[in-house]
């Protein structure tokens, strides 16, 4: 099964030279996969696990839907935080941290969209 992610970064206002680049990839993924889903973040990450523990790793997409303005913390399931998402922001990365999963938490019930695909 192939997954085609593309990232485009554009900026024509900051520098005298325009930033405009695109990168794409073709990823081979396997089961299990979690299709695009939503979850309301709990205040404790252990109650909002979005990727279960696995030794395989996965490609992970997470987006803050903006229903509330609170920051979403993205963490490994040992509570080690590695990213913050604000309103409307998204991230896409390969995740493999030992056999840890991924969890999210926020001070309020922020709804996030997420999906993952096993590597």
């Amino acid at each position, binding site marked *: 099964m*192939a997954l085609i*992610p593309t990232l485009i970064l554009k900026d024509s206002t900051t520098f005298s030279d325009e930033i405009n680049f695109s990168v794409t990839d073709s990823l081979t993924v396997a089961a299990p996969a979690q299709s*695009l889903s939503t979850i309301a973040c709990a205040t404790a990450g252990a109650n909002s696990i979005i990727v279960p523990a696995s030794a395989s*790793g996965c490609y992970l997409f997470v987006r803050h839907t903006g229903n509330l303005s609170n920051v979403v913390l993205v963490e490994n399931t040992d509570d080690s935080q590695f990213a913050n998402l604000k309103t409307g922001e998204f991230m896409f990365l390969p995740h493999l941290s030992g056999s840890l999963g991924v969890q999210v938490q926020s001070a309020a019930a922020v709804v996030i969209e997420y999906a993952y695909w096993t590597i």
Partner: protein
Amino acid sequence: MATTTATVSISSSDLQPGNTLSINASSTIMQTGLTTGLELMDMGIGHLRQDSARDALAEATGTIDTTNWVYICNNATDDTFFIKVGIHETVIGNLGAGDWMWMPWNMGHADNEINIEAEPTGATIPYEYAIFKSTDTLPASDAA
């Protein structure tokens, strides 16, 4: 004002029979507070050698708890070559040949450097990166 827009699309035609995957998202990256864009950027290419062990791609030299974004792409053509990416002691994941990642980076505190490491033994991996930052503190000069 700096207006940097990031757009991602993720698609698949064979992931689920009868259900083509097509995810699209876009956001303008902003400093904390959502009103000012990110005006500091580092961008470059390099070669990462496995025998140099874990290297800091960027030190957390800005203000704590500010918004920063990181793009890294592994440009290796050997599909056994990958880059281990982490923030200080927290391992995030492995970036395979041709793969890229886009994520926010909370400097948090001084030892939240982004680190990268080439694998496996003997690998030399070409990579490219871009880092968009809210703030930065230049290192002090050693000049007398």
